[in-house]
């Protein structure tokens, strides 16, 4: 079984390499600023008592948690970055976008899966095409529009478009709606349900997993968005966590890396927790969608 051993070894190496950037960043966030900026491969922080404290001593671990807590506390209460405010801004944008995309995309997906109309497939191809338009390509054109609307310097450009459905959300929901047996709609229609009735009473309740996946994807996309806030916001009080982190590390100019890493860890954490709690939804969602980079 040499081949299986070879596969196992290669996967172990790959897993290790892919884990290093984040794990190492997290470990740096636990160190003192002097240790963070020192060369070497030391994984855990070191503390001096009378001589270097041993990993097995209680004193080491009390210092360890003291240092870690101090770093994260410094980030939370930093005078140059209002972390709690950025957190609130990020949550506001993400929650409004998730609500918007769920409401609008499910309605649109119903129109593409349950109603037969001429030109539907051609229009749906157009939806697929827009799914592939990267944000960076349309950011400058969008700026021109939002400027006309007076939306620059407000949160609106970051969440309002989500209320007009997102191509990938429509795609995922449509694919899911197609798997719901038609007989269920027809039974409801015979009982006198309109399309609205079928949508609300039959389709939506059966689509909870797909709706959850779409909501998760939108949350991650909004939470992680950097270019949008960078271009459309212009006051520090409006910063989202992504802008806050970019600004924080620029202001620090590379000095307390432990604090930059603590900030970064806090920014990744919600998304990582969501992923760990709902791994199946994520994996199936990406496989259905077949894209998103």
């Amino acid at each position: 079984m040499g081949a299986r051993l070879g596969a196992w070894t290669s996967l172990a190496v790959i897993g290790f390499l892919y884990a290093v950037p984040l794990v190492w960043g997290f470990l740096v966030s636990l160190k003192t600023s002097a240790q963070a900026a020192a060369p070497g491969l030391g994984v855990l922080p070191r503390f001096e008592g009378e001589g270097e404290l041993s990993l097995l001593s209680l004193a080491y671990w009390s210092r360890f948690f003291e240092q870690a807590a101090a770093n994260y506390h410094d980030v939370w209460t930093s005078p140059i970055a209002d972390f709690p405010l950025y957190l609130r801004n990020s949550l506001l944008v993400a929650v409004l976008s998730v609500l918007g995309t769920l409401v609008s995309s499910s309605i649109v997906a119903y129109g593409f899966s349950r109603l037969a109309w001429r030109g539907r497939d051609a229009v749906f191809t157009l939806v697929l095409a827009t799914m592939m338009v990267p944000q960076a390509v349309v950011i400058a054109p969008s700026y021109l529009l939002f400027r006309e609307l007076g939306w620059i310097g407000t949160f609106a450009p970051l969440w309002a478009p989500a209320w007009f459905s997102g191509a990938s959300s429509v795609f995922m929901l449509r694919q899911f709606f197609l798997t719901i047996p038609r007989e269920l709609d027809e039974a409801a229609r015979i009982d006198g349900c309109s399309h609205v009735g079928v949508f609300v009473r039959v389709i939506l309740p059966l689509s909870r997993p797909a709706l959850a996946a779409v909501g998760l994807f939108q949350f991650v996309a909004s939470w992680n968005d950097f270019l949008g806030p960078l271009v459309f916001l212009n006051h520090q009080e409006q910063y989202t966590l992504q802008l806050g982190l970019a600004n924080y590390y620029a202001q620090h100019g590379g000095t307390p890396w432990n604090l930059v890493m603590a900030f970064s860890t806090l920014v990744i954490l919600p998304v990582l927790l969501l992923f760990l709690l709902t791994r199946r939804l994520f994996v199936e969602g990406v496989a259905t969608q077949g894209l998103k980079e």
Partner: protein
Amino acid sequence: MKRPPFLVALPWILPWAVGFVAFLAVPIAMSLWYSFNDYSLLEPAAFVALDNYRELAGDPLFWRVTRNTLFYGLASSGLSVALSLLIAALLETRVRGASLVRAIVFIPVLVPAVSGAVSWLWLYNPRFGLINSALSKLGVDGPDWLGSTAWAMPSFIVMGLWVIGSSVLVYSAALQDVPRTLYESASIDGVGRLGRFRHVTLPMVSPAVLFNGVMSLIWSLQLFAPPHLMTRGGPEETTYTYSMYVYNNAFIYGRMGYASALAWLQILVTLALTLIVLAVGRRFVYYRAA
């Protein structure tokens, strides 16, 4: 009493139609108009016809960023297609711990660009970064990765390969669809492991290869956040990308007209690539998902 089907469907697709026109078609049309203007955002636009496009042709920086971006795009998407197929094939062996590795490889997809940039800045740091610390244990004096004209762009390519979790998932789905019987009959005919990969697996997953390849090319040609945050395009503009040039012209240099011309070229190239994806990927995308 029966209304025509299109009118019944219209209210349902209206949110998409409005959004498509308002947030995509109108901005793109506006930027086409401004690409024929000299427009600083502060003063009213002045019509200059094709001047912006003419200037592009003679702008050395335009050619520079185009070359950089094409180099990054081709290298990064080519390597990512190969590496993610390799990883997906390894995961399909279902050895112990494979699902853990699958999760670990996927996680970077979820990491925000700024956090990724911060982590990699630290790994690449010439003095105390992990890479050079590890190299010095081996007695090698590592270069200043992001500060060297030779290493900066390759460093971004490596960093891009960290984020291939989605193509791995697409390959995994494609690999699971290859009928087992094909492998069995190939084995009976005495075809070895490599031969089976070459003659059974590769042809069967080729639509996925093409799809992942073009998708990853579309995305890598937009590279913005990592060089914007980590090198500002330096050293000596070796990591200055097309999207950064659009951004800088639009929002830093106050040259929205010129930026619009740049953006329009980018839109046309993306559109062409998208048509390729739709043409070749259609079968794959449709049947994969259902």
